[in-house]
C-alpha cells in the first residue's frame, strides 16, 4: 500500500506539490494526471524517495520513507520517463547490478524469466547503444520488476513505445496489480490510463483538484446526463492549462 499524507515540495518560494493526501491499496492502479508542470514528476520522485519532501508523510507498506528509508525503498520501484542506462553494462549486467543493490537471492532465474517475458533474451549481452528506445524501456522495466516491489511508480511509461510494446507494458502493469502491487502511473495518454487505472488523481499547479475511482470521477463530472470520458473531464478541469 502507498499512503501519502500532506505531501508538499517547495523549491525556494515555488510550490511544486502542495498538501497531497491519498492512498493506493494493494492491487490498485492510480493514474496521476495533470498538465505539464503540474508537479507529477516531482510528486513521483518524492514518493519513491529520490528527492526529500519538504513536508508530509509517505508510507510504503507501513514503512515510513523518512524514518526508515531503506526498508521502504526495498519495497518500491521507480520507472523514469526516459530509460537511463549505464553505457557500458550489458542488459544482463544491468540486472546483475540491480540484484546486488536489492540483494535478490534468486536473481538469475528471475532475470531469465523477465527477459523471456519481455522478449529480450536474445539481447541479454547487448550494450545500451545497440538497443532501440523501446528495448531500453524494457531493460528499465526488467530491472524495476526484479526485486518484486510492492509499490511501483511509473513516469510516462508508454511514451515512445510502439503499439505492441504499449500493449505488453499495459498487460505487465495490470499483471503486477493483480499480483498485489500498489501502482501509480503518470501519463498524458488518458484513454490508455482509462484501460489500466482503477483510480485517478488530477493535479493542477501542484494541487489535487480531483481524486477517486474512475466511476466516481465520471459520476461527479457528468454533463448533460451523459457520462464523460477522462479526457473530457481533464480538459474541463484543467481548462486553460491543458495546452501549455
Amino acid at each position: 500500500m502507498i499512503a501519502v499524507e500532506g505531501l508538499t515540495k517547495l523549491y525556494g518560494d515555488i510550490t511544486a506539490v502542495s498538501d497531497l493526501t491519498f492512498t493506493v491499496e494493494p492491487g490498485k492502479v492510480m493514474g496521476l494526471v495533470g498538465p505539464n508542470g503540474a508537479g507529477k514528476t516531482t510528486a513521483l520522485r518524492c514518493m519513491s524517495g529520490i528527492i526529500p519532501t519538504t513536508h508530509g508523510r509517505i508510507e510504503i507498506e507501513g514503512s515510513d520513507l523518512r524514518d526508515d528509508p531503506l526498508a521502504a525503498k526495498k519495497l518500491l520501484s521507480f520507472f523514469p520517463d526516459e530509460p537511463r542506462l549505464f553505457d557500458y553494462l550489458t542488459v544482463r549486467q544491468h540486472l546483475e547490478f540491480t540484484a546486488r543493490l536489492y540483494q535478490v537471492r534468486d536473481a538469475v532465474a528471475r532475470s531469465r524469466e523477465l527477459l523471456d517475458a519481455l522478449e529480450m533474451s536474445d539481447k541479454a549481452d547487448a550494450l545500451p547503444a545497440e538497443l532501440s528506445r523501446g528495448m531500453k524501456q524494457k531493460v528499465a522495466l526488467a530491472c524495476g520488476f526484479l526485486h518484486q516491489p510492492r509499490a511501483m511508480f511509473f513516469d510516462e511509461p508508454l511514451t515512445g513505445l510502439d503499439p505492441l510494446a504499449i500493449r505488453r507494458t499495459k498487460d505487465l502493469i495490470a499483471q503486477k496489480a493483480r499480483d498485489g502491487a500498489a501502482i501509480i502511473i503518470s501519463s498524458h495518454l488518458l484513454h490508455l490510463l482509462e484501460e489500466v487505472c482503477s483510480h485517478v488523481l488530477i493535479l493542477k499547479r501542484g494541487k489535487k483538484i480531483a481524486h477517486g475511482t474512475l466511476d466516481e470521477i465520471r459520476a461527479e463530472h457528468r454533463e448533460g446526463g451523459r457520462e464523460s470520458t477522462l479526457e473530457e473531464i481533464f480538459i474541463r478541469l484543467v481548462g486553460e492549462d491543458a495546452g501549455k
Partner: protein
Amino acid sequence: MSAPVNALGYLVTRSLVNGLLSRLRRLRQPKYLLGAILGAAYFYFYFGRLLGGSRMPWGTGGGPAAPHRPEIGAAILFVATIVLSWILPASRAAIGFTEAEIAFLFPAPISRRTLVIMRLVKSQAALLLFSAFMTLISGRFHLGSEAWLRVGGWWVIMNTLNMHRLGASFALQRLRERGMADGKRRVFVVLAIVAFAVLVEFMRRRLPTPPDLTAALSGRGNVMDYLVQVLHTGPLRQVLAPFKLIVAPNFAHDAATFLRALLPALGIMALHFIWVVRADVSFEDASIEAAKKRAAFLAARGRGELRARGKSDKARTPLWRLRPTGFAPLAFVWKSLLKSGGRRTLGRWAAFFAVLASGAFALGRVDRLTHPLIVTAFVIGGGCYIALLVSFVMIGQHSAAQLRQGIAAMDLLKTYPIPGWQIALGELAGPVLLGSLMQWCSLCIGLMLLSIAPPLHSHLGIIAAIGGGIALLLPTFNLSTAILPCAGALLFPGWFRPQENAGPGLENTGMKLILGTAQLLAVVVAMIPVAFFGAVAWFAFGKITALTEWRALVAGGTAMLILAMEAGLGIAWLGSLYDNFDVSSEP
C-alpha cells in the same frame, strides 16, 4: 553498507572492461585503427620525453637556497583553494552522479551516507589518474621509484581538497536552509579573514621582528625569499602548519620521509572523510539538476555545439525581418545571426569594438604617450592580433561545426526545395560573415595602434594599404578554409563525429591529428595560386606605378578574386556533396 559498495565495485569494473572491449572491437575499422596508432605515437612523443627524464619547462626546481619555498607555496595554494570553496559556491550542494546512477541508485535501498561514500570511492580512479598526470607534467617520472611517492602525495592533496570542497558545500547548504543568504555568507568569510589580519597586526609587538621589506623591494634582497621568511616565521607559520602537513608527502625525497609525512596527512584526510559522511544534507535535488545539465552539455558537445542551451535562453531579436520570398541562403544567414545572439548580443559586440576603436583613435592623437598608456596600447593591440591569428583557424572550425549540426538535421534539409549549393552557402555564410566582421574590427584597431609606434610614422600609407589588402582577402579566405572541414564532414561523417559515442581516447586524438594536418595541407595548396597571382599582380602593377600602396591594394584585390573563384568552386562542390549525401550512411 557492503552490498551497495559491492554493487558499485561491480558497476565500475564491468563498465571498465566492457568499455575497453568496445574500444578494441572498434579498432577493426581502419579509421579508428589509424587514429589509435597516430594518437599513441603523439602521446608517446609528447610524454615519452618526460618518462625518459626530461623536465617540462615549468617543472619544479626547488634549489637548496630556499628549501621551504615550494612547500610554503603549495600550502598557500591549498589555503587559497579552501578559502574559495567557502566564498564562491552559489548553487545548492550537489554530488556528481550520472543520470543512470541517479535512476538506479537514488530509489534503491541505499542510505544518503552510503551514496556519499560510493561517490567518494568512485572518484578515486579519476583522482589517481590526475595525480599521475600531475606528477608526469611536473617532470618527476625521471625520479624512478621516487615518482610514485609524488603520485601518493598528489593523491592525498587532491582527495583532501575534494572532500573539503564537498564538506564546505554541505555546510553552506545547511546555512542556506537556515536562512543565510549567499551574499551574507561571503561577507562573513571575508570579514573573518580581515579580522584575522587585524588580530595579527594588533599582536605584532609581541611577535618576532619581521624581515626587512625595504631591502627586498629595493633590489638588495629577493622578494620571494622575503615572503618565505615571513611565512616561515611568526604566527603565519602556525597558521600554515596544518596545510603544510597535507602537502608535505609531496615533497618527501625518500620512502622513510614520505611515510613519516603521510601519517599526519592521512589523519587530516580521515577527519575530512568523517566530516563529509556525517553531514546529513539534502543533495538529491541539486544532484539531479547537475546530472541533467551535464547530460545536456555532453549531448550538445556531441552535436558540435559549444554549450548546451538552457531554459534561461531568452527569445532573441533578429537583426532584420526576414521576408517570405527572396534568395534562400539569406534565411540561413538570418538564422545563424539569430543563433549567435541576435540584435542584443551583436549590438554589445559592436559597442565593445566601437569603444576599443575610439580608445585606439584617442591614443593615436596623444602627443607624448606615458608608460601606462603604452602598456594599454600594447595590451589592446596584442589582444587584437592574437584574436586575428586564432580566428584564421577558428572560423573554419566553427563553420564546420555549424554544418555538422546541419548534417544531424539532414532529413529536414533534404526536404527543402533548394539546390545543395544554396544550403552550403547559407550554412557557411553566417559564421564567415560574423568572423570576418570581427577580424576587420580587430585588424582596424590593431593597425591604428601600430601606427602610434614612432618608427612606423613614415610608413603609415603602406601599413594602411597592406591592412586594406588583408581585409579584402579575409572573407574569401575564411570561406575557403571553412569549405574543407565541411566537405570532410560530408564525405566522412564518421570521422568528424567521433566524440558522439566514444568520448576522448587515443583513436580520437589520432583522428583529430589526421584531420588537422589534412586541413592545413589543403589550405597551403589552396593558397599557392592565390599567392602566385597576387605576386604577378604586384610585379605587373609595379611597371605602371611605383606607389607601394596601390600595388598592395591591387595585389590584394587580385588574390581576393582568385580566392573567391576557389570558394565558388568549393561551394559548388559542397552543394553536390549535399545533394548526393546518403543520410543512411554511418554517422
